[in-house]
């Protein structure tokens, strides 16, 4: 189902406001990737590129929900920093779709094959988990409190600079 539909999707232009063009993530996935992120099947995919990014994000970060507004922000930031990003995202999703690559094996496979897509998973992970896009002197922050590294431990820790609680509250055993 997926590959020829992906081609037709890619031929369409971005038009999230047009109901006739409204498409869901499910349309971009094979049975394999759909099985990895079943919760995301009903997520909107305004374009093939944005949809691919959302699907990849869901697969890589392994969460049961992703904030749609945050996904839009991160996509925009990544696309600004890496001009090839949208195309690369689609290519990587296609790769995973086609070859049923387990997320834990993904980086190893890309590195072994010296794939030009090898930096991509790290870029996406850094954006979601650290809230940082770009590298070296061009790195910039796009999220902090909503970065997933903070969210994933939010029941136990507040991110640095945020108060833990009234004086002495840190002496208790963490629940």
């Amino acid at each position, binding site marked *: 189902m997926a590959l020829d539909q992906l081609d037709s999707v890619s031929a369409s232009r971005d038009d999230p406001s047009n109901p006739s063009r409204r498409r869901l993530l499910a349309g971009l996935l094979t049975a394999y990737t759909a099985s*990895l992120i079943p919760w995301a099947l009903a997520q909107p995919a305004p374009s093939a590129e944005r949809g691919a990014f959302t699907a990849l994000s869901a*697969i*890589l*970060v*392994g*969460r049961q929900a992703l904030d749609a507004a945050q996904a839009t922000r991160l996509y925009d930031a990544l696309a600004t920093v890496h001009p090839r990003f949208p195309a690369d995202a689609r290519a990587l999703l296609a790769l995973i779709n086609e070859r049923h690559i*387990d*997320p*834990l094996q*993904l*980086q*190893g496979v890309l*590195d072994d094959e010296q794939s030009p897509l090898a930096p991509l*998973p*790290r870029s996406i*992970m*850094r954006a979601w*988990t*650290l809230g*940082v896009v*770009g590298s*070296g*002197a061009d*790195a*910039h*922050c796009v999220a*902090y*409190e909503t970065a*997933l*590294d*903070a969210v*994933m*431990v939010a029941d*136990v*820790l*507040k*991110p*640095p*600079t*945020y*108060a*833990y*609680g*009234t*004086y*002495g*509250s*840190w*002496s*208790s*055993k*963490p629940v």
Partner: protein
Amino acid sequence: MSGQLSADIVVIGAGIVGALAAERLARQGASVLILEAGPRLERARIVVAFRNSAFKGNWMAPYPPSPWAPHPIYVPKDNGYLVQAGPYPYPAEYIRAVGGTTWHWAAQAWRLVPNDVRIKSLYGVGVDWPLSYEELDPWYQEAEEILGVAGADNTGSPRLKPFPMEPVAEPWAMRRFRERLAPAYPVVANTVARNSRSYGGRPACVGNNSCQPICPINAQYLGINAVEAAETAGAKVVANAVAHRIEHDAKGRIAAVHYYDPDKGTHRVTGKTFILAANGIESPKLLLLSASDKYPDGLANSSGMVGRHLMDHPSTSLTFYADEELWLGRGPQSPSSINTLRDGAFRSRHAAYRLDFTNISQVLNVTNDLIKEGVYGPEFEKQLRWRAAHQVSVKNVLEVLPNPDNRITLSTEKDALGIPKPEAHYAIDDYTRQGAEVSKADFARIAELMGGTGLRYSADGQFANNQHITGTMSMGNDPATSVVDAFGRSHDHENLFICGTGVMPTAATMNSTLTAIALALRTAEHIMPAKTAHGIAAPADGEASLA
């Protein structure tokens, strides 16, 4: 247009040391002017700059250097301000701004242990200080009361009067270290300039876990508090004033300080007494820059020792996973340590050290590790939570002996104002390396007692820098081998005093700020005895200031 300012006392450097000396003197009625190379900063902006930073692990990120008063930056790339001549890097970090480097300290406010001042007599290494621990004790006390130091009497440093505050509440993780390492290693609360109750009109700690790079709520004492106190006492601060030459008269008395403003306009400031407190690198740099026909090797340098005996506290560390959930990151960053290895007969053979436990949240480190390892999918969150809960770290804080070849000189490279940059010549000798080697056994034992797995020692031969710039203008009784006397007065210039960690002739094993402050208060007393007691600690009426 070049302006002319004048004051009884001219202080160069508005860090915690210069500001507290200035405050004490201004309170006695002296007119005091403090020149600071860098700008004024605002705490709230620093907090937001940190949250907006792409380099959260780099504590200098919220403190960008100003073009006219640069300070060393290494991330994302080395700005080349502190030139490294080697053989070993000395990547010091400091902040040239009103308030100085303590904007981003962890408030560890340690005293020496008594034998630290006599390691030459006792152990045949290093040098003896020209004063005793007993002479310093009351100055430590005054410093602790001004800052508001919280601690208990179990760290090896005797005291005549109690701490102003009880120790800061112990984080759960540190309690488990204390319980499980006893009796082999007594883990104690660090003596810190951090409020365990409201003190000095400032709130108690609420566990922001960001002491470095910034305490958002002023629960820890910073240089900016000292500057505000000095200004309240009547001192005047001139920011963005880059001192580049100290002028002397025909007799060798200091007559004036010349500074540039950011547009390289020149200004001359006259005074009766001068206090140089610009940190252990910038102060010797200024003395060397002030060379003249009469003093071709720079001011205060008849001994040739200005800039020499550069020291720090190098660190090596062990990171491992404890066998229980500890969750570092709850509470202040530096709560506890082991202080029983700071002294002993072994000091004739190898360096002493403290052992510091970090309570800095491990989330950032662990996330970086997981991405590097390519851990994606649902496993990422599982691993993040498990590692963030279990990962802990212990590091040593090693003594470095004074070596005249370790030094700060003037580089041939120049900064934007045309002033020669400082150049660091540094090496770590066998004395210290042997101490690091010995400490590995302690690391291993600590990990064993915590059921540690996944042990990762820092790379052999690699030492982290701790920003305790000491030794470069050492105090001593002999003008041939020291730069200042026991009161910080230059042997060569009667009206020039030097305050800061740079006058400490040995580094010992503890963070040096409190000792530098104690010495500076003693220097201020020597310049002008105090008639009124410090009132900084008394909570003033009115609201707490966060500025």
